[in-house]
């Protein structure tokens, strides 16, 4: 279990996060929502260990050592790189693979089975810029899995993809959870989180609310998180936020 107690983080002159106390248990699937500038990426970078909290402590309590699989926000620069899908996914193994330029047969087999599972096996010899947004998203997830993680962090996996792909990403994320991975993702897409994730953390520099969507997503909480006037209605037992919120990006 990862436990954050009173975490704060300040960039040179921006206090991006303060008083964050929460925990993520093994096998949990958590969505972090909040408007632009809320500190979602900052929180992920703290979890990644890329940023050291300026306040508070982050601990890995009585669990196996943390191995993080990171699925970054899609970046155009990354996609113009002359790599094949299989090459990129294999790079997830770079830190534990033997000190030679090639990957072992076993690693290649592992990679192919991951590609197969994510439905991009046929595309393994394609270049990165020859994939659609959703296919590339899956390649990024494949690379994260190739690193043999127990915690998977996804930054905005729902941005810039169509409904059908969104559905596929969701299925995938749920599958990861059932396989025992801890999954934490950030998103702008409130309704997607509300409808599909068991737990949501509303973030705006600090935690506004944390829990099951049906409890957490009241119009008051959403207003406080986003600073926008919204209504929450229930549809098929799930909360739906109406009226466009935030600007997204």
């Amino acid at each position, binding site marked *: 279990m990862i436990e954050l107690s009173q975490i704060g983080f300040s960039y040179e002159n921006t206090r991006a996060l303060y008083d964050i106390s929460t925990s993520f248990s093994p096998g949990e699937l958590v969505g972090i929502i909040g408007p632009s500038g809320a500190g979602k990426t900052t929180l992920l970078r703290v979890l990644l260990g*890329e940023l050291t909290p300026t306040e508070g402590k982050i601990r890995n309590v009585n669990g196996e050592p943390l191995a*993080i*699989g*990171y699925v*970054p926000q899609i*970046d155009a620069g990354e996609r*113009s790189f002359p790599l094949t899908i299989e090459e990129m996914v294999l790079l997830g193994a770079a*830190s534990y*693979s033997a000190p030679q330029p090639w990957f072992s047969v076993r690693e290649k087999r592992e990679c192919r089975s991951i590609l197969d599972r994510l439905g991009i096996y046929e595309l393994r010899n394609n270049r990165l810029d020859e994939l659609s947004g959703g296919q590339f998203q899956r390649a990024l997830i494949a690379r994260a899995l190739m690193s043999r993680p127990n915690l998977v962090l996804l930054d905005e996996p729902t941005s810039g993809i169509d409904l059908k792909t969104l559905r596929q990403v969701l299925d995938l994320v749920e599958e990861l959870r059932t396989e025992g991975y801890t999954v934490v993702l950030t998103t702008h897409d409130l309704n997607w989180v509300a409808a599909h994730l068991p737990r949501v953390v509303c973030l705006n520099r600090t935690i506004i609310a944390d829990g099951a969507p049906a409890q957490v997503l009241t119009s008051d909480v959403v207003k406080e998180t986003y600073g926008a006037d919204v209504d929450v209605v229930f549809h098929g037992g799930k909360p739906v936020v109406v009226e466009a919120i935030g600007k997204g990006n």
Partner: protein
Amino acid sequence: MNYLTEPFQYDFFGRALIVTILIGALAGAIGPFVLVRRMAYIGQGMSQSILGGVALGVTYGLDLYFGAAVAAVVSAALIYFVRNQGLPIDTAIGIVASTLFAMGVAVVSSSRDRRLNSTNLLFGNVLGVETSDIILVVVVSAIAGVILFRFYKPLLAATHNYSVANAHGVKAQFMEIVFSALLAMVVVTALRTLGVLLVAATLLIPAATATLTFRSFAQITVASTALGVAFSIIGLFISFHRNIASGPAIVLVGASVFALNLFASGATLKKGLLQR
């Protein structure tokens, strides 16, 4: 056959050939990493920078390569320092490289030391290759080869996405040092045969040519290495027979092959790396 055998009547040619082949291979192998970092100017920057080190080193009675190596390290450190102040990397390279280059030119222009021949330093001189140069190049290439063999995967991972590699357990920061070290090795060893102004071309041209044809990074690296060697050999022969300086001959052979390839594959280049 005469065309191929005649040059070997001269001792210097065999020596020059060994050195050029090794440097061609080394620069060819590292070139793809330089290219994908969009740091095309780093090779240029580092090699220009070493002129300052060479000039000062020689003036104070030190070895040519010693001054060059120190300058390469200083140059890399300064470039990263300036960049970390928040300036774009090309600005950092430009400022550091031209300053150290200017220092070099200043010293060279006022010096009477024969070893500080500006033409040779700027454009290289194969006639000047001595046994000690060969030893140095062989040793340094071997070390660089081992480093590249050992760190190819983590280096590629960190080059592709620093944060992701870091998260997945690669020592990304250390890979920056590995990359700079490899680059410094090429730039310093190429000083004698290519001079400080033409090294960058040997880092970029084989790699760029390879990316026109090959799809995977592994193929590109292998092809780039082979092309680096081929350009060096062909260039050296042409240089001998046409009596032109070897550095420009090698670069022009590479540029011609690149241009032909570009022309042939022009239609498919639309989405390629070189477009942006």
